[in-house]
Each structure stands twice: as structure tokens, then as C-alpha cells.
């Protein structure tokens, strides 16, 4: 549709049911006709209840999940499973997963986890300076001290693991960052550091961000647009200002009503 879109998802359908179950049509699809587009420097948040299909959409975008119908276009070209994507595309789309501990190799140190991404994608490796210094800098960006570099993922707390996976994704200087609950597990002080980092990268490098979160306060701070997902479909997509000030769909209103604020407790 839009020529300026970095990523475009159209009529995406994903079902985890068998073909027979699907033909009978009684079982709902996990993702049921989702479309959206993202400009190169835009942040789109996807919100919605648990099981509504957010992670599944994200996994399709990064090529970790096959879809039955629809398409994912990157720079105007259709992209399939991650193994079949050209290295440049693979590098350009990075994801931070909902379960950070599960996505880090427990036998590797933090330093080797990051260095490995550069061995896989030499074009992203820092040139003209030591990898160790570059790693320390990346860790500092996400609020970790350099001492973490020599530790293994199993010796880190949940929030520390989460920041390592953000650093690993950013090490490849992606054009699209898919964040699945990437900051929800972090305390607010670190959270604001990472939100500022992401906002800065968006402005400086034109980083596009697909941001999945349950934290509507964070959405309000960083999203340009918000898509509300319910039972596999997008029920409302609007600019952040419109969504919070003038929610249209009853489900959006229900979500906003359920959100807690520190004030009024």
C-alpha cells in the first residue's frame, strides 16, 4: 500500500489447529486477518489481552512463525521464514523476547553472546576499535556495568537478562526492533533509561519499533500509534493521543479502565 513503509503486514492469518479443525471453522485463529504498516522511524505499540495473538504477530514479522495467509513485506519485498531471509534482512529485523532467560544460551558469557552476533553478521561488527570496548558501551547503554560481561546468563537476575537481550539486539544496529514485553520486567528507573535510549535511536538512526506491552503508561510515553488486539484481530488502530483521549472501541475503553495508576490507589 504505502510506498514509504519499512514493514507492512497484510491480512495475516495464523492458526495452530490442524487442517481438519480449520476446515470445520469452529476453532478461532490465533491471528485472524491482521494488517498494519510501519514507517522507518515510527513506533507502533500493540496492546491487548493475554493470548490475543501479539507475540504470534511479532514472531511472523521476524520469521520465526509461519502464517497460513497474508504477507509480511520488508522494504517492499515479501519475507518468509528467518532461515530463508537474506542476511541483511535478518540483521535488520531484531527481536527482544518475552522470556529473556529462555532466549539466552546459559552456557555462554554475556560477552560471547554479543560477540557471536558480530561473527554471524560481520557487517555489523564495530570497526576500528576493540570488541570488548564496544560491548562495554552497549551494556552501559542498557544500564549494566561492565562486570556483567564475564558472567553467564544463569547468574543474572531476570531484569539483567532482559537488558542483555536488548543489548544483543541493538548490537546489530537493526532498522526494525520488535520488542515483546521488553521493558515490562524492568524497574522504572532502568525502564526510563531504555525508553530514552530507544527514543534516541529512533530520532538519530530512524529506528522503527514494534512495541508489544501491557503497560499502557509506557505506551502513552513512547508510541506514535497504537494497535489494540483482541482475539486475533486489531479492533482499533489510532494515534496514541487519540487512543488515550478518545478511545473508540468498547474493548479499548475496557482496557483503559482496568489500567492502574499510582495516583488514586
Amino acid at each position, binding site marked *: 500500500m504505502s510506498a514509504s513503509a519499512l514493514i507492512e503486514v497484510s491480512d495475516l492469518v495464523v492458526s495452530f489447529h490442524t487442517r481438519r479443525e480449520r476446515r470445520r471453522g469452529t476453532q478461532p485463529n490465533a491471528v485472524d486477518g491482521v494488517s498494519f504498516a510501519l514507517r522507518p522511524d515510527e513506533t507502533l505499540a500493540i496492546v491487548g489481552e493475554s*493470548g490475543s495473538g501479539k507475540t504470534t504477530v511479532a514472531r511472523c514479522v521476524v520469521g520465526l512463525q509461519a502464517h497460513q495467509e497474508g504477507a509480511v513485506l520488508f522494504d517492499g519485498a515479501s519475507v518468509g521464514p528467518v532461515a530463508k531471509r537474506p542476511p541483511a534482512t535478518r540483521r535488520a529485523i531484531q527481536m527482544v523476547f518475552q522470556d529473556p*532467560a529462555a532466549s539466552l544460551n546459559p552456557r555462554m558469557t554475556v560477552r560471547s553472546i554479543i560477540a557471536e552476533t558480530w561473527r554471524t553478521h560481520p557487517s555489523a561488527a564495530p570497526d576500528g576499535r576493540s570488541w570488548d570496548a564496544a560491548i562495554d558501551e552497549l551494556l552501559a547503554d542498557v544500564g549494566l556495568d561492565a562486570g556483567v560481561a564475564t558472567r553467564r546468563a544463569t547468574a543474572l537476575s531476570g531484569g539483567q537478562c*532482559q537488558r542483555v537481550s536488548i543489548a544483543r539486539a541493538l548490537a546489530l544496529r537493526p532498522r526494525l526492533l520488535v520488542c515483546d514485553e521488553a521493558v515490562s520486567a524492568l524497574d*522504572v*528507573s532502568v525502564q*526510563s533509561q531504555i525508553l530514552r535510549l530507544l527514543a534516541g535511536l529512533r530520532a538519530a538512526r530512524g529506528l522503527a519499533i514494534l512495541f508489544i506491552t501491557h503497560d499502557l503508561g509506557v505506551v*502513552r510515553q513512547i508510541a506514535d500509534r497504537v494497535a489494540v488486539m483482541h482475539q486475533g484481530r486489531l479492533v482499533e488502530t489510532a494515534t496514541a493521543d487519540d487512543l488515550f483521549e478518545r478511545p473508540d472501541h468498547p474493548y479499548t475503553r475496557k482496557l483503559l479502565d482496568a489500567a*492502574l495508576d499510582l*495516583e488514586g490507589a
Partner: protein
Amino acid sequence: MSRSSEVTDPAPAEPRPPEEPAPLLRVEHLSIDLPGPAGPVRVVDDVSFTVAAGRTTGLIGESGSGKTMTATAIIGLLPVGAAVSGRMLWHGADLVTMAEQDRRRLRGRGIAMIFQDPQAALDPTQTIGRQVGEILRRGGMPAKEVRQTVIDLLDRVGVPDPETRHAQYPHQYSGGLRQRAMVATALAGSPQLILADEPTTALDVTVQARILALLRRIRDEEAMAMLLVSHDLRVMAHVADEVVVMYAGRICEVGSGREVLNSPAHPYTRALVVSVPAVRSKTAIAEPLPGSPASPAERPSGCPFHPRCAKAQDRCRSDVPQMRQVAAGRQVACHFPEEM
């Protein structure tokens, strides 16, 4: 409650006011050392707090501040090589010195834990139903009854279609559903104390509200005590009766949830409170604290928060601030607490 007062309380001189029931668990001067590459690292340092029946104590703090280790020490599942000192009094018995087989018997029935990482805590090769019902089966409940109880539990925590879902495996659950399955597993043993480590972190607001309401209801109906570990101050403000704020393995502030979060006395608590993004009004991304969270391996001298504290004076760099009472029910470890 009644059971605990028989054995625990050393000398309840006067009857306590109803809003301050006798603690079910009393943690006193708990310290935990974990083996590190350069010798043992003190990840929890001299931590004391109580959890009472029918009350929720909230543990707040930066990642790595020792919240999970504190909860893990209580449930008795610390990593190998961990050294624990201090006392953890449970019905008068010290968990620190209790025999492993007694601890095992307590686990799940007396004290249950909802783990932070449901992915790691659930066995991928077993159905959710089997894992939720494990403790019931071990207790000798007939299979048919176990099945029905599990379905009821899954329904209670908001897993849709539990009749079908109980037979599914963890990978077939979304992140939020796995977390709910963890809550069901913890509830299965009808424990007196639940240690909930970030139980609602990956949950959407509607399910979060449901789980919190559920935990609150069980707390009230069954006088269950809860130690809620969360970095989500909004959740804390709505659920915790008392809060304990930790930084770098130490406690910096203790008090009633509402008061601490409305008028924090410790500069660190204050920094946390002002960074919470609001939903009902648009706020700018907060100014992050300078520097990184202190790692317990390189805990700064004096007040561990001093390198990041805007109010730090010379004294903060040399003297460790001790906990002191600044108002009724409020203790703060800071040389220069905020005006409240």
C-alpha cells in the same frame, strides 16, 4: 493465625490491634552469600521484615537488588553453595536451620512460590494439568478428583476453556497463560503463605486486575499471607499493606504501602515513584537515575545508593545509614531522608 500465636510470639504483652496481626513469618537479619568468581558475594545483607496472615507485604527494588534471592531463601531453593545467616521464623521454627525433609514437606503446602520465570519453572514435557495437580496427587487425592480440582483452579485463575486447556503443554500457552498456570500451581496446595515473584509482570491489565483480585480474595477469605515481589509500583500501591524497598541487597525503607508510595522518605524510593509512567495523563519519560544499579559484588561504601543520589553528602560515602524510625510504622535507612 491462631496456630501461629501458640508457638511463635515470644511475649505478646498486649493484644495487638486487629490491623496488625501477629506475623506468620518473621525474617530477622537475613544475609545470603552466593559463591562468585572472586569469592562469596553478599547478595542479601541484613534484611528484616514480617509477613502476617491475611496481609500482603510487598518487596520492591531494582533488578538484582536481592528480591528473588530473599523469596528463594524462604522457600528453601537457593542455588548450591549459598550461605545463609540470620533467622526466618515460621510458626516459631527457624527455616534456616530446619532439616531438609521438613522443609520439603512445607514446600507447596505451608509455603508456595509463584516463580518469576514461568518458562523455566514449567516442565515442557508434561501437561499443564499434570503440573498443577502434582501436589494433590502426591497428597493421595484420587485421579478423578485431581482432574476436577485442577480444572476448577485453572478456571479460577482465568485460563479460558480449562476442560481442554488442562491437557495442553506449556508451549501451547501464551506467556500470560503460563503465568496463570503458575498461580494455579501455587494455589493447589492451599498454602498459608504465598511468595509471588512478579506474578503479574507479563500480564495484560485486565488479567492483572483479575489475578490481583483473586490473590486479594484468597488472602482475605483464607487469611493467606502473601509476600509479593514486584517492581510494578502501581500494583504495589493497590495490593500491598506493607512495603519493603530494597537496594543492592539492603533495605532502604519500610512502611505502609500507601504512605511509602505517596510520600517516600528515602531518595531511592522517591526516584522510583517519580519514574512511574501514568496512564490517565501523558507524562514525559522520566530522567533516569545517573549511573547503573549497584551490583552486590561491588557495593559502594557507606550508603550503597550514594553514587546515584542527588542528595549525597560526604557522610553518605563513609557511613552506612542504619534503619531508623521516622514516623509511626515507617523506617528509613538514610542520613538525610526526604520531608514527608
